[in-house]
């Protein structure tokens, strides 16, 4: 089924129906990829947990005491926001996949609604990526002006997982952005034909 439609899209550039088919399959592929990426990003950050022994010096004359500490995504509100936003985007990707398949590539109120929801998801995903990246940067570098110490020298694995989740979610949000852009360019093209 998929190879057939790809063949149609490749051969029939002039034929309107085949062109519409290829546009539909491109949208389908983008939505499916975006679904997978946001799901993976939410899971990667959602399962991240690391327990470490942190040396804490209570009295300057005594040797430091090792205190067990854990790093979890639930401890940081920006990471909670990131996971929630990625879960929303993932659920919405499935919903919009069904909607756009049932809509059969027509331009009507439903496709406009899907584009509006796409836009909102783009804004949510980008703000989530920005929030998680800002907090991750403080964790990585620290901030000497307000004496926020870096954490990534202790929780190396946790920081790696956070960075991976941010990168995956960034790719997913770029895919949603491309979906909006393709919808706009299709509208623009069909206006001129």
């Amino acid at each position, binding site marked *: 089924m998929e190879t057939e439609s790809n063949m149609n899209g490749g051969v029939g550039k002039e034929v309107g129906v085949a062109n519409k088919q290829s546009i539909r399959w491109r949208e389908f592929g983008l939505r499916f990829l975006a679904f997978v990426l946001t799901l993976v990003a939410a899971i990667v950050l959602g399962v991240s947990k690391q327990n470490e022994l942190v040396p804490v010096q209570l009295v300057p004359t005594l040797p430091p005491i090792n205190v067990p500490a854990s790093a979890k995504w639930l401890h940081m509100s920006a990471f909670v926001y990131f996971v929630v936003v990625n879960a929303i985007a993932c659920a919405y990707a499935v919903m919009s996949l069904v909607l756009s398949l049932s809509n059969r590539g027509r331009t009507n109120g439903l496709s406009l609604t899907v584009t509006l929801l796409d836009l909102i998801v783009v804004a949510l995903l980008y703000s989530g990526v*920005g*929030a*998680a990246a*800002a907090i991750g*940067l*403080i*964790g990585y570098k620290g901030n000497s002006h307000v004496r926020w110490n870096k954490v990534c020298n202790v929780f190396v694995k946790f920081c790696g997982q956070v960075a991976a989740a941010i990168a995956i979610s960034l790719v997913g949000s770029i895919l949603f*952005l491309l979906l909006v852009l393709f*919808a706009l360019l299709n*509208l623009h093209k069909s206006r001129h034909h």
Partner: protein
Amino acid sequence: MATEPKKVGAPEEDPVAEPEKAVPPPATRPTDYFKVADVVLRVLVFSSALVSVVVMSTSKQTEMVPIPVPPYQALRPAKFNHSPALIYFVAALSVAGFFSIITTLGSLYSLTKPAGCSAKIISHFIVIDVLLLGIVASATGAAASVAYIGLKGNTHVRWGKVCSMYGKFCRYLGASIGVSLFASVMLVLLVLLSVYSLSKKIPK
């Protein structure tokens, strides 16, 4: 300050544009409303980006704060460029303001030329709008997450709260983030308006 004439200027566009468009037959009138709304939204995006950049960059506050070494109190400033997230915020909103000036001028031009000669330019403007939405949303998220840590602190990683010492700084930060949130909502409306007006023009 500087945005006041802009904001006053935006409603003035409407009465100038309306009588001109009232002469052609009413079939073309809805598109004219779209164009006027387009210009107004772009001016709103520009003014809110400018306001949030100005508020953020004037948020410096110097206070006596406790320090661990002997005098135990010192004058320490709080500035936006102490945090990379806030620097990104200012840079991103400056870019958004700059591009919204360009797109406002272009869309004013297409308002005065009713022939619609610049359809290709308008489609480029929509691409710019979508990209700006991504930039402004990520900047708002980054600045808001840092400001939230500053407001509440985080006991798990022992990051102390900052807003108990720098009250004015935090109020400015909050205002600036709120205005940039407004700018991103306006950008969503702008893209939605373009999608809607494009889909209205498709011959059935």
